[in-house]
């Protein structure tokens, strides 16, 4: 059933901040709330020894660890499960003029490449193993970053971004990725974007996801830094839904602490204390979503052995799988529209909810 779109959400104070190991030299901050981001985009300023605003195009650690590395490790298994063509995407591709050049940004295993035999598809993805799979099927593909497409302006007739933007961890990056899709198509070109919705049709799915929250960690404040809301000190970690889960979260976080590759999870503080009460009232949009990689699949790639050793993935002996977590920022109703509102050469020509995804079709003006 199609949702009628309510007015665009004006709530924006979702401070989703990441911190890497404060003891490493690679102390980076990702972006902040929307207002600050609008001003900060493209700006670098310094406070103390740290840049306050990181480049939109630099990949935040959470994406490196819980998107890039995971997909690299699970690529063949992931690809084997990705074959069903989603009717709405199929319909969009079938509607394109014959001879269209279609750019698939974040093409994954290439499920949609070549879908319309009258069009020429070029796919890109940030995961080399997934691109290998596409290339093996004879598709025209390259390894590239959806936030920074290596294409000149106005070349494509259409672009698609299917289940991609929800892996980007800041508002600024999500907006930039949309701007890139618009930039690379011609005037009049169409862009289809689909993302996972907060409003899942199967609510029980959320029980399998790990909600993530933000928390200060005061002892990491550098004495020379500005006081209190120093962006760089906010930590991303799991929250316990109930007291019963707190023990489990603490144990899980202790496991995660064993990460030894220099990119600490820092997920060593439970979110149960009172300073996080506010967080629970906001719409939860940040999650780890598990991927169960069967043991026999894990043998094939050595990545899983290393991941288990680092505490980056865990064994589920009951299911016989190595469990990876994938980072998701699931979208609320109206959020895609809000992101697009700031792009003055794009107009919305269709918008809908389908199978737990928010979808939008844009036309470049």
């Amino acid at each position, binding site marked *: 059933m199609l949702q009628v779109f309510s007015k665009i959400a004006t709530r924006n104070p979702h401070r989703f901040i990441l911190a890497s190991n404060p003891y490493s030299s690679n102390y980076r901050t990702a972006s902040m709330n929307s207002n600050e981001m609008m001003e900060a985009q493209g700006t670098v300023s310094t406070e103390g020894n740290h840049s306050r605003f990181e480049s939109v195009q630099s*990949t935040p650690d959470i994406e490196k660890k819980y998107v890039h590395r995971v997909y690299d490790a699970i690529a063949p298994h992931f690809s084997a499960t990705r074959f069903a063509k989603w009717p709405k995407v199929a319909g969009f591709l079938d509607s394109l003029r014959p001879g269209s050049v279609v750019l698939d940004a974040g093409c994954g295993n290439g499920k949609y490449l070549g879908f319309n035999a009258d069009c020429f598809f070029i796919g890109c993805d940030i995961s080399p193993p997934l691109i*290998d799979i596409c290339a093996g099927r004879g598709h025209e593909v390259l*390894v*590239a970053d959806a936030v920074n497409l290596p294409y000149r302006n106005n*070349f494509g007739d259409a672009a698609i971004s299917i289940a991609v933007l929800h892996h980007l961890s800041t508002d600024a990056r999500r907006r930039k990725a949309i701007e890139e899709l618009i930039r690379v198509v*011609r005037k009049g070109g169409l862009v289809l974007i689909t993302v996972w919705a907060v409003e899942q049709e199967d609510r029980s799915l959320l029980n399998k996801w790990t909600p993530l929250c933000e928390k200060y960690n005061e002892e990491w404040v550098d004495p020379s830094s500005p006081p209190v809301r120093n962006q760089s000190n906010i930590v991303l970690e799991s929250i316990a839904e109930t007291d019963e889960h707190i023990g489990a979260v603490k144990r899980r976080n202790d496991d995660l602490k064993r990460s030894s590759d220099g990119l600490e999870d820092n997920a060593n503080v439970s979110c149960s204390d009172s300073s996080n009460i506010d967080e629970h009232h906001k719409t939860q949009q940040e999650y780890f979503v598990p991927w169960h990689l069967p043991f026999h699949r894990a043998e094939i790639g050595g990545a899983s052995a290393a991941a288990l050793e680092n505490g980056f993935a865990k064994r589920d002996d009951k299911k016989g799988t190595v469990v990876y977590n994938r980072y998701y920022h699931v979208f609320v109703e109206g959020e895609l529209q809000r992101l697009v509102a700031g792009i003055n050469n794009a107009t919305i020509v269709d918008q809908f909810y389908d199978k737990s995804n928010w979808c939008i079709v844009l036309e470049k003006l």
Partner: protein
Amino acid sequence: MRLLTHNMLASNARGASTGYPLKLQVVKWTTKEAEPNADFLRGMLPKLDWAALVAATHSLGLPGLLPESPPTDAELSADGAADDEGSALRRLHRALLEIHIEEGTLVCPDTERCFPISKGVPNMLLHEDEVRN
């Protein structure tokens, strides 16, 4: 990588003004025959940077494949063009779609930054210190 794709690729690294066209250094390339689609090729013509396409064919050691000036739509639509290997249509088809660069390097004209092509796949990812602010 086909030359059609090459015609679209640009370096987006810091310091690149246009980053286009990327210079092509080819180590290995092949030809894979495909059925020409006249409508597709005629539709592609206005999108192409012709000079960049010609330069790419020169890099491959095929200076005679394409004319210095782009063909007209009329030339592409000429009768029997699809069957005539020497026709403007077939030449454009060969250049855009039948040539595959397997191994080589794409070089940014502004910064000389090199992007590898391996097993037919270009890798356009930048390092952290190369992304634009």
